[in-house]
C-alpha cells in the first residue's frame, strides 16, 4: 500500500485530501505513478497532465520523475510552493 497526499490547489480541484491505494506492481517511480493517476481521466488527466506544474514529494523529500516509489511510501502532489 502507498499513501497519496494532495495539497493546496490540487486538493481542491481533485476533491481529495489523501488516499491509501495498492501500488500496481508495474509502477517503479514517480513518472509511472503520475501516468497511472492520469488514467483515472477527467480532472485527474487535466490536473496532472504533462506540462502542468505539479511537484511531487516522496517520504517528505522533493522528488523527480525518476525517484523510486515503493510500498509503504507517502507520496504528495502539489503546485509550486508560494510561501515566504
Amino acid at each position, binding site marked *: 500500500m502507498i499513501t497519496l497526499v494532495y495539497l*493546496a490547489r490540487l486538493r481542491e480541484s481533485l476533491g481529495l485530501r489523501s488516499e491509501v491505494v495498492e501500488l500496481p506492481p508495474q509502477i517503479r517511480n514517480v513518472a509511472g505513478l503520475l501516468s497511472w493517476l492520469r488514467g483515472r481521466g477527467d480532472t485527474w488527466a487535466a490536473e496532472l497532465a504533462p506540462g502542468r506544474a505539479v511537484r511531487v*514529494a516522496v517520504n517528505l523529500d*522533493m522528488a523527480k520523475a525518476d525517484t523510486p516509489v515503493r510500498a509503504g511510501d507517502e507520496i*504528495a502532489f502539489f503546485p509550486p*510552493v508560494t510561501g515566504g
Partner: protein
Amino acid sequence: MTVRVQAEDFDVAREIAALRGRDARVGAVAAFIGLVRDMNEATAVATLELEHYPGMTEKALSGIVEEARSRWRIYDATVIHRIGELKPTDQIVLVAVSSAHRGEAFAACEFIMDYLKTRAPFWKKERTPAGERWVEARASDDEAASRW
C-alpha cells in the same frame, strides 16, 4: 537551530535575543521579516490563507538551514513561518542568522530565504473582493534561488 511553523505572531526582538543568547563570539545578526501586503498583481487583498505540508515543512526548513551552515561560518539560525489566516501588515516569516561578521550573516540569511521561497511546502491563497485565488509561483523566485 530554531525552526517553527505556527499560527501565532512572533516577537522579533525576543527571537533575536534568543538567537544571540550570551554567545560573545556573535558579532553580527542579519534578519529578514516578510509581511503581508494589501496589494498583489494590482488586486486588493483582504486576507491571506497560508497552508503547509506538516512534517515535510519542518524537514525542508531544517535541511535549508543545514545547507546554509555548510556554506557559511554561521553560529545559529532561526526560521519562523506562520500558517493560517493572515491580513495585510501581518508578519509572515522571520529568518535570522548569527555570525562573527556581517558578510556571512547577510549571505546566509538571503540564501535561506531564497531557498525557503522555492523549496519549503507552503501555499498562499488570497481572498480579494472579487473572490479567492491561489497565488501563482514566480519565475523570479526560481532565478533568485538558482544563483546560490
